[in-house]
């Protein structure tokens, strides 16, 4: 077992363990903080995969913005939080069973497809992935349309969210 595999396994334990805490802890603020830990682990995975830009963006967007938004929302709706009753449905075992079944199905599917146990080839020398990503995102024969549509999507999200969340002026 190489050092890289050990780091991967540790990160995997961090990601999955934190994710498990996210869906099980009672205190919602703790759930949000566990989400941060889990997403940080995903950023480490991106770093191992040499996707530098995505690793950093994962921290900037998920931890710096989305997690903060979650924490704000938890605090604004906190009364519910104080009721320390059950946070899960009474029939929680059905989704648990469903999740387990899907997991077993997916894993057996992954293991049955030939060629997926490959290891990665070395990165092409001299490839600046950030620059290549930028080129892919702006060249017309690549992903310029999704890029601009993402902008429109964000505009729609902003308009919609601001409209919905705006304080009623009575």
């Amino acid at each position: 077992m190489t050092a890289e595999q050990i780091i991967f396994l540790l990160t995997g334990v961090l990601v999955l363990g934190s994710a498990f805490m996210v869906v099980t802890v009672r205190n919602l603020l703790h759930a949000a903080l566990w989400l941060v830990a889990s997403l940080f682990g995903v950023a480490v995975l991106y770093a191992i995969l040499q996707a530098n830009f995505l690793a950093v963006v994962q921290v900037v967007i998920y931890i710096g913005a989305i997690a903060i938004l979650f924490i704000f929302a938890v605090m604004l709706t906190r009364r519910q939080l104080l009721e320390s009753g059950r946070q899960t449905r009474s029939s929680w075992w059905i989704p648990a069973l469903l999740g387990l079944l899907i997991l077993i199905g997916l894993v057996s599917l992954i293991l049955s497809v030939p060629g997926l146990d490959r290891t990665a080839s070395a990165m092409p020398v001299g490839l600046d992935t950030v620059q290549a990503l930028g080129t892919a995102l702006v060249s017309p024969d690549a992903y310029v349309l999704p890029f601009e549509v993402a902008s429109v999507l964000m505009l729609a999200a902003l308009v919609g969210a601001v409209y919905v969340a705006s304080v009623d002026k009575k």
Partner: protein
Amino acid sequence: MTFWNNPINFIGNWLTGVLTSWHMPAALATILLYIVGIVVMIIFAMTLDIGLVWVERKVVARFQDRLGPNRIGPFGLIQPVADIIKMVIKEDITPAGADKIVYNIAPVLAATSVILLWAILPLASTIYGVDLNVGLLYIVAAGALGTLAIIMAGWSSNNKYALLGAFRMVSNMISYEIPMVIILLVPTILANTMSVKGITQAQSGMWFAILSPLALLIFLISAIAELGRSPFDLNEAESEIVAGFHIEYTGMKFGWFYAGELLHAFTFGGFMAIFFFGGYGGFFGLEKLGFLTWLNIPFVQALVFIAKAMFGYWVIMWVKYSVPRIRIDHMLAFNWKFLVPLSLVVLVNTAVLNKVLITLPSWLYVLGMFGSNILIGWVTIEILRAYGRKQRKAGEKPISPAQPQEQVA
């Protein structure tokens, strides 16, 4: 290669030689070398931090016409050491009802988020931790961890002032992060790289402060806001919410928030030097002259860098101790209605002009970039002046006593 022109490699090669002669595997030797380098870097940062406590107290004393610490050691130089001893041996109080784990993680995270910045800070052309090709975003990412630390501290203290302070601080930090990120695009465009070292090298002939003075100004303002320093220090407004998010922290835990803030301020001074004043270099080509080649020695470069960073830090202190605190509505309005649109204009201006003017002779290019910035600044001031005139005119209207004025909050 000698010790003087590449100290890190020199020591690294020597240490690797020693370690491999002890039959240590090469990979382990590399990791050990990294750890040694990191420890040296962090110890340097921490020593600097202790020095900054003294600098901050001395400078604020001069601004306020006092002497500052002057009893312990010559010029009070030992004062920060005494401060640290005091903080360590103080009783550490955890408030009742605090969320203990989150409460204890927060100060560590706050300090770590600042220390992490030093991983990519190039002190000289050969003295730096790592040259990341996404360096600029790495800075923003480390800032995100700092934001999280503040909200954790405020929430876990079980104190309404702490929570309010944290909310103010976080809304302050996230708001001013937008002009900061947008303006970081300007050095990216000008240097055509996101690596911090690459940006430094791109300024060997011309500082970006001259190519885009407005970007420098916006960066300075948003850096001050990001630090939560006056005039954006609503988070600790003593008269309203006592001390902000770290009100319940005592002893060394408070010490880390304080030390983290000082080191953060200095580090932002350093980043200002890197993005706009050429970092460790930027001598306008003077270093190529025969009698000035000593400017290329790494230790001289490191001194130059620290001097520039200290200048940035001093400007931040100057603002802090001269400008009064502003109101939260003013603060947010200033950001969203002024800084964000202005930074977008500067960004578009840089993107277009850098593309159009790059073919011209270099003096025309510099003149065009500088001139366009001055023009934008002038237009902005004119708009503000017209707006102010309108406001004043609206305010001058005589108030008839019959009409009850609406409550002005």
